[in-house]
Every structure is written in C-alpha cells, then in structure tokens.
C-alpha cells in the first residue's frame, strides 16, 4: 500500500542526529524491552507471518505512524493483532481483566528454554519453486508501475524505473501474498537502479540504489 512507511526519497523529516554509538542505550524507555519481547513472543505463537505484522504496522493512521517512536508503532500494531486473531478481546483490554481462557493446548507457547534455539534457528524464507526464473543477472528490468492496496515490498521510488539485476536469490516467500496468509514463493532479485535515473541529474553519476524485488514486480523493459 502507498502508506506512510514507504519513506524512501521523502523530504522534511530533518536531520538524523544519531546518538554516539558508544553511549546510545539499546532501549530508551524501560517499556521498550517488553514491547520487543512481547512482539516476538506473540509472533512465536504462529498466528501471523512477519509480513502480516508489517502490514498491520504500515496500515496505522499516517499521522500516528509518523509521530510515533518505532516501539510505539510495534505496540499499536501488536494490540490490533492480538484482538484480530482473538488472543485477547477488546473488552479484556479495556477492563484489564481476563474474561475467557483459551482452550488448553490450542496455542504453542514459546517457553523460556526454547528461546535461544528458536531465534538461533530463525525462519528461512527461501523455498523451492517449480518455475524457472524469468530473468538472470545482467538483465535490464522495469519495476512495474503498480499500486496495490495491500502489503507490498516494492518501494514507490523505483516504480516505473529500469534497473539491472545484480543478484538472484532463488525462490523466496512472496511478501505480498504472505501478508494475506498465503505462503508461496517467487523468484527474488537484487536490482540496481542508477541514482540519476531515480532522482535526476543532481545525483552523482556513479551512485546507485540496490533494491530486492520479487519477480511479480518486474517485467522486461
């Protein structure tokens, strides 16, 4: 979707003002620790994919999205997801009281003992797919001018531009479908776009931006 999260190339957000690496705390508020841990632990229940989680975050009201800190966005999104998936009800959240316990054994809960094993294993998104890739390294491709209402990972700033395939990653879970709960693969490529093609003559002639794009985002130029 053309949401507030698709920020590449926007102006007016101002300076970065990075905190020095040596003194920046990992968490700036104590609750951020719990926001991270709850988001991961709830994700481990397997009720939604990472793409669904991203989709919920980027569907937040644009004014809320741009005015919230990153972990605030996570909490907003997590609150919506636990209600949408029936883990908590709105009434339980409003009253801070449990109304109904889940059926025993319905959910696979992440135990403390399993945390390191689960996160050290991760969840690869590569998958074997039957069809051969349409493109190969060195090919020029056009990033489609597409504006899907649902989740997508093709940033607005490359749409309609021609780039060159520099890496082919094989089949990967296609984010747009995964965000709708459908796990299927498409060929994934890294595409190099020259900065001047994207941003005009003020960009340095030799500079470029590499973007990972799935095959459905691409066509022959």
């Amino acid at each position: 979707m053309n949401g507030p999260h698709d920020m590449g190339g926007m102006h007016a957000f101002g300076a970065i003002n990075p905190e020095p690496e040596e003194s920046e705390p990992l968490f700036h508020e104590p609750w951020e620790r719990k926001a991270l841990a709850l988001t991961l632990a709830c994700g481990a229940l397997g009720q939604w994919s990472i793409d669904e989680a991203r989709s919920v975050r980027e569907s937040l009201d644009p004014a809320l999205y741009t005015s919230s800190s990153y972990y605030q966005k996570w909490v907003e999104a997590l609150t919506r997801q636990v209600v949408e998936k029936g883990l908590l009800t709105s009434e339980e959240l409003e009253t801070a009281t449990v109304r109904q316990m889940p059926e025993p054994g319905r959910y696979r809960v992440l135990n403390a003992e399993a945390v390191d094993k689960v996160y050290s294993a991760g969840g690869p998104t590569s998958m074997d797919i039957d069809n051969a890739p349409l493109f190969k390294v060195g090919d020029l491709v056009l990033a489609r001018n597409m504006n899907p209402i649902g989740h997508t990972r093709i940033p607005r700033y490359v749409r309609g531009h021609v780039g060159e395939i520099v890496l082919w990653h094989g089949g990967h879970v296609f984010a747009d479908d995964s965000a709708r709960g459908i796990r299927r693969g498409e060929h994934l490529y890294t595409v190099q776009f020259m900065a001047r093609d994207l941003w005009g003559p003020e960009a340095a002639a030799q500079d470029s931006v590499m973007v990972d794009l799935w095959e459905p985002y691409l066509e022959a130029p």
Partner: protein
Amino acid sequence: MAHDHHGDEMTEPPSEMALRVQALESLLVEKGLVDPKALDVIVDRYENRVGPRNGAHVVARAWTDPDYLERLRADATAAIAELDYTGRQGEHMVVVENGPKLHNLVVCTLCSCYPWPVLGLPPAWYKSSPYRSRAVIDPRGVLAEFGTMLDEDVEVKVWDSTSEVRFLVLPERPEGTEGWTIEQLIPLVSRNSMIGVEKARPATGAAA
C-alpha cells in the same frame, strides 16, 4: 518524553505506553499465551548476547583470513554460521565490501530490517524517518552527517533491505594494522562501519 533512569524523575507516574505494555503483558501471561520467563530471555539475548561484536568478529576474520573472505563472498550465510552467528533476521546474508573507490550503505526504507545475528537490534536512528527517507536520495548528505566525507569519484551503493535478505558491510581494513590479530582488530570494527555510515576506526589510539 524521557521517562528514564534519571533519579529526579523517579517519582513521575508511568507513561501511557508503559501502562499499555504492562496491561498487554498481564493479560497475555494470565491467559497462558506468553511465558514471562521467555520475555526475560528474549531481552537478555538481544541486550547482552547478540550484538555488533559478532559482526566485528566476522569482519576481523575476513581481514585476516583470505580463505574465509572467499567463503564470505561465496555464501555469507554459511561463512557467518561457521562462527555460530545464525538465526532470526539473518537467515539470508549478503556481505558487501567497501574499497578505496566504493562505499556501501545499508538502509530499510520500508521498516527496520537489519541483520540481527551479527549486529543485534538496530539503533534508534536506523529506524528513524530521517534516515529511512534520506539514505536512498541523499546518501552523501547522510554520510556527511556521520562525519564520513567521501571523495567525489567514490561510488556509493545504497542497499535497501526490502526482502528477507540482510546486508553486512565489510569496511576497509584501517591502515597501520598489518600483523594485528583478530582480537586486536575487533575493537576497530564499529557497528556503524558495518551499516556503512562510517569507516572502521583508525589504528591510531587503539591498543596495538
């Protein structure tokens, strides 16, 4: 905004966010959906055990071991796994090498994708709107803000992490470090140099 650890703020009531997170946690724990001890282990893992020292180890090894560098180029995920750095948000790794005329910079314009097994959780600025918006359109301005000035003839490549592939920048080895061991080199490899906003720390001033 800052309800943090300063002593004179101890009497402030918890922020709205703190209360909301507390309420979520209480309900989820009471319903048996979240193991409170698991929350502690997750925080400990990413606060104390998985961080940029892992990536610095990968870089220092690549600087000192040409065979390892070759394996890193051929299959970064496997080469990084040799050092036991694996898992979530690093399942598919690509290493991009800086050189005298090439500078790589990593961003996630759409959210906050970042190679957790080698760098830990991203710093706040990496997830901020200014960095996400500007890195692709004004990389040289962004680099200047970090004090990184490049010659005009250097090529800048920006890697926007739009899939589950994660990028680690291999910074240039600082001059004057010939013969240094991996342990001596690791402190020169800043987190920021592996994101690409800075170069590795100079040998000057570091314990040789």
